[in-house]
């Protein structure tokens, strides 16, 4: 058996979660959690978008690729979207994305979509704590590393003019 990087011990592992929150509901709820001084796990980093409809599945994948252990998406409750239905679009993409993620071995708990209304500061607290605990149990999100070419190529010059000069068709 070859030695792979050992899994980090459960202790000392602090999950890093990136949250994409819509401006009107979930970001506001998260501000409300703040003004209400609700204490919760410090593991999330919120990125504000105007609407959960702006959340591109590519953001989720890139976030995992950059080393996050979880991604939390937050939008207005169904029917409450500031832009009428951005949250539904987010939901549909999310559901399709989750099926893909499952095939790619990304655990279900790592990517989560929550509807949190502007008044639900306590839900921000609850969902964050819950998610941090779940991901703490799972450990690091270990995507396979993308290989890069190891060495610079030996051929130093790519003198295209020379190439061009060399050929007439």
């Amino acid at each position, binding site marked *: *058996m*070859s030695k*792979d990087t050992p899994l980090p011990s459960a202790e000392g592992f602090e999950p890093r979660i990136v949250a994409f929150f819509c401006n009107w509901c979930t970001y506001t709820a998260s501000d409300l959690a703040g003004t209400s001084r609700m204490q919760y796990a410090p593991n999330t980093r919120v990125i504000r978008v105007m609407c959960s409809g702006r959340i*591109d*599945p*590519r953001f*989720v*994948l*890139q976030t*995992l*690729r950059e080393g996050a252990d979880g991604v939390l998406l937050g939008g207005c409750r*169904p029917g409450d979207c500031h832009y009428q*239905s951005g949250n*539904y*679009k987010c*939901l*549909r*993409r*999310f*559901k*399709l*994305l989750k*099926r*893909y993620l499952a*095939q*790619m*071995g*990304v655990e279900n708990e790592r990517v989560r979509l929550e509807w949190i209304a502007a008044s639900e500061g306590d839900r921000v607290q609850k969902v964050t704590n819950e998610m941090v605990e779940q991901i703490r149990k799972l450990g690091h*999100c*270990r*995507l*396979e*590393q*993308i*290989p*890069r*070419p190891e060495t*610079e*190529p*030996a*051929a*130093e*010059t*790519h*003198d*295209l*003019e020379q*190439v*061009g*000069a*060399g*050929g*007439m*068709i």
Partner: protein
Amino acid sequence: MSKPKAGFYWCASCGGCEESVVDLAEDILGVVEAIDFVFFPVAMDFKREDVEAMEDGEMTVCFINGAIRSSEQREMAELLRRKSQVLIAYGSCSYQGGIPGLANLCSREEIFKFVYHDSPSTDNPQGTRPQVRFDAPEGELELPSLDKEVKSLDQVVEVDYYIPGCAPPTALLKAAVEALLSGDMPPKGSVIAPDTALCDDCPRIDTKPAEPLITEFKRPWQIQIDHEKCLLAQGLLCLGPATRGGCDHACIDGNMPCSGCMGPVSRVRDQGAAIISALGSLLNHDDPDEIDKALDGIPDPAGTFYRYGIPHSTLYARCGITAGNGES
């Protein structure tokens, strides 16, 4: 003045890319006149020793098709990189991992287990597995080993240009050769193909309604496909909106939905995610259960949306497939 030297090599591929060269038809004569092929194992009898004997950078250009999965392919890629001034990843496999790249959904052990044990057509009572070393009567043989994952060419060596497609449209090959000869090459790292999605020149675009058009996903065998109407509008998973054009809509003309072989346009980091976002958005359901029901019509999202590009995608491979040694 001597003609520029060129190489054409295959790694993990099907041979279709070579076919695409033949597809140049009479134009191939012009190419052969302008270029000296110094390495082309499928067509001409050159050996690795011949390449090793070359000066570094001796070849003006080398086209490599096929993904990289074995030690041999890696060595050849590195060797050809050294020997050529311009290295072109030719075809979907070399560019993005291609069909062989789907193997990144499984570990090497799972593949071996299936191929040498579980598959219904396997008869292997001794449980023989491929060996890297083998004691033949003639002495010990060393064979190429299989890597844990499939890589695109640029994940192994630096690549100068990409020509996409499965197989690449001959027009692109021709354009690339002409550009090379004329010296009018785009910036390094470019994909030599148009940079708009297939819909741009799809002959059926006018029949595509501008509305949330999907209520149910269908497979081509499930319906009588209309020859004129937008395939997405017929419920077929056409990846045209998220796939680079340049293929002269060959599949569409064959009344088959685009399966995405040309890869994404340059502004899109992840082709599959782009189509997930677009199709998800256009699904005409709000009820979570209805959404799920509709999505059941896509039994294999990874294989559907990343058919030609798992190694080149953001996630690269299924988590955990390189864990353990996977040796038999």
